[in-house]
């Protein structure tokens, strides 16, 4: 009798967890769609909203530019050097540059940019929103007739997307320049060959996958912390904190996007 009751309770627990899991993902998708609609509607860009948006964009992006550029340049030089030296030792130097472009520009750098934005800005924004929610600020806004999603979530998400895309684009340019310098040195004689090689790597399919990957990275990094902050339960019954759960979910999504892009590129 007791075992039957225990089985039923574990089943109901499983059921509740599965429902929570599905509801969590559904809320994430719903928030994404809502943000997309709000981002595309001109009414979201009134003068005060623009100012708030500009503030978030600036604070998410500008302080990271220099540090991220330096870090990116350093990583590129090191990895390029490793790949080139290894390739030369195996007598495959003609493929080294293509490998560098593929590994760095296509795969590693966009992922690094997304992780950087996530750790530096998006998670902080999520925590901030979560604290506002706990403090009742969002409820207060709602009671005053102000949509908290439009006023608090939209600028943060847009700033996160903007920051990820900017850093990804910047890091790609920096990686390309640094790889060129590491291989050819300070000369322009290799530009034609390098450009040709770049064109061979970036065929239409790879370019499309790269653009989509960067876009989805930026969405994942910006949306998941916001959705967790808005909808996750703050009850102390859960073992892991809301921030940790948000982080795990975000990493899972980023990993999924990366795997899908690899499948698209190499299968």
């Amino acid at each position, binding site marked *: 009798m007791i075992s039957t009751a225990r089985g039923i309770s574990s089943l109901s627990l499983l059921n509740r967890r599965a429902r929570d899991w599905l509801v969590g993902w559904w809320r994430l998708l719903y928030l994404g769609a809502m943000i997309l609609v709000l981002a595309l509607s001109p009414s979201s860009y009134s003068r005060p909203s623009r100012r708030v948006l*500009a503030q978030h*964009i600036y604070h998410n992006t500008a302080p990271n530019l220099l540090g991220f550029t330096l870090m990116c340049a350093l990583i590129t030089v090191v990895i390029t050097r490793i790949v080139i030296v290894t390739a030369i030792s195996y007598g495959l130097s003609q493929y080294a540059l293509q490998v560098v472009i593929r590994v760095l520009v296509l795969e590693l750098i966009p992922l690094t940019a997304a992780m950087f934005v996530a750790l530096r800005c998006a998670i902080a924004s999520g925590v*901030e929103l979560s604290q506002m929610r706990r403090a009742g600020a969002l409820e207060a806004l709602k009671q005053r007739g102000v949509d908290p999603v439009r006023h*608090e979530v939209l600028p943060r998400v847009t700033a996160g997307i*903007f920051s990820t895309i*900017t850093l990804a684009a*910047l890091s790609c340019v920096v990686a390309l320049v640094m790889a060129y310098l590491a291989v050819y040195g300070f000369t322009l004689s290799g530009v034609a060959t390098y450009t040709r090689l*770049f064109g*061979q790597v*970036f065929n239409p399919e790879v370019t499309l996958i790269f653009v989509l990957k960067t876009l989805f990275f930026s969405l994942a990094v910006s949306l998941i912390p916001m959705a967790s902050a808005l909808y996750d339960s703050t009850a102390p019954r859960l073992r892991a904190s809301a921030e940790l759960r948000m982080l795990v979910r975000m990493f899972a999504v980023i990993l999924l996007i990366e795997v899908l892009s690899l499948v698209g590129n190499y299968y």
Partner: protein
Amino acid sequence: MSDSKDTSAGTGRPPPADELGQLPPVANLEFKAVLLLVFMAALVIGSALYVLYARGLFESTQKLVLVSDDSEGVVVGMDLTFSGFPIGRVRRIELADDGKARIIIDVPTRDAHWLRTSSVFTLVRGLVGSTNIRAYTGLLKDPPLPDGAVREVLRGDTGAEVPKLIAAAKELIENLNSLTASEGAVAASLGNVQKLTERLNGPSGALGVLLGNEAEAKKLIATLDRTNSLLTKLDGLAAKTDTQVFGAQGVMPEARATVVQLNALLGEARTSLKKVDAVLVEAQAVGANARAATDDLGTLRGEVESSLRKVDSLINEVNRKWPFARDTEIKLP
């Protein structure tokens, strides 16, 4: 922060209720934000333009179609090289109706002058690395290759040659193994050579090797001895013949005297023949005279015949007019 607060107050919108959501104030915020937007747009647009440029979208090209029976290893985007420099790029690979692969290559117009009507194209697959399409132009003064030209590509496949080479080498090694095995042909030959050497060193020597056994060799030696004695006899015979034929009393002097006599006889005969010739000339003259006389005789005969006919006709006339010897007797049956 003050900017945001001022603006919120100015538009009558409620500011965020919680100070947690506020960010530190930034001077010239809108300008900096626009600058960031422009920066991002420039990065994205510049990257897109660079990709398009690298893909060759801004250069005018001409089409070259290479036909091959196998396009394995050829991928879209790979280079067509001339003297190691890329001068074209594979745009598409398609299967033609005749089952051959058509490799469509875009050659930038500025590099097209390296390709001439006499250019040769090769598709080479190395053991390691990708396939290469190469162009070779021997005569750079030939007419330039026209747009959309279709050319056969020559294939050189190192990878495909390796299995054939290995199979041939394996066969060769097997043959060598079978030759050099203990029961093989080489060992047998060497054994035979050894036996041969032994027999050469034996009592019968090379003759025994040549004739197979010792008895035959002895026979040959006996034959040789007999041939020698025969030759000795022949030698004596030849000396005797010499005496008989060419000696003082031999056949040859007699024959020479006979010949002299024959010469004298022939001279006499020649004289006689000359006489006979003269007689014949005379006889010929006689013959000619006789021929003339014969002609005259013909004429005489004609005249005699005509005279006889006349006499006959006269007699007939006389008989008709005077029947001297008419037979009047009537014979009854």
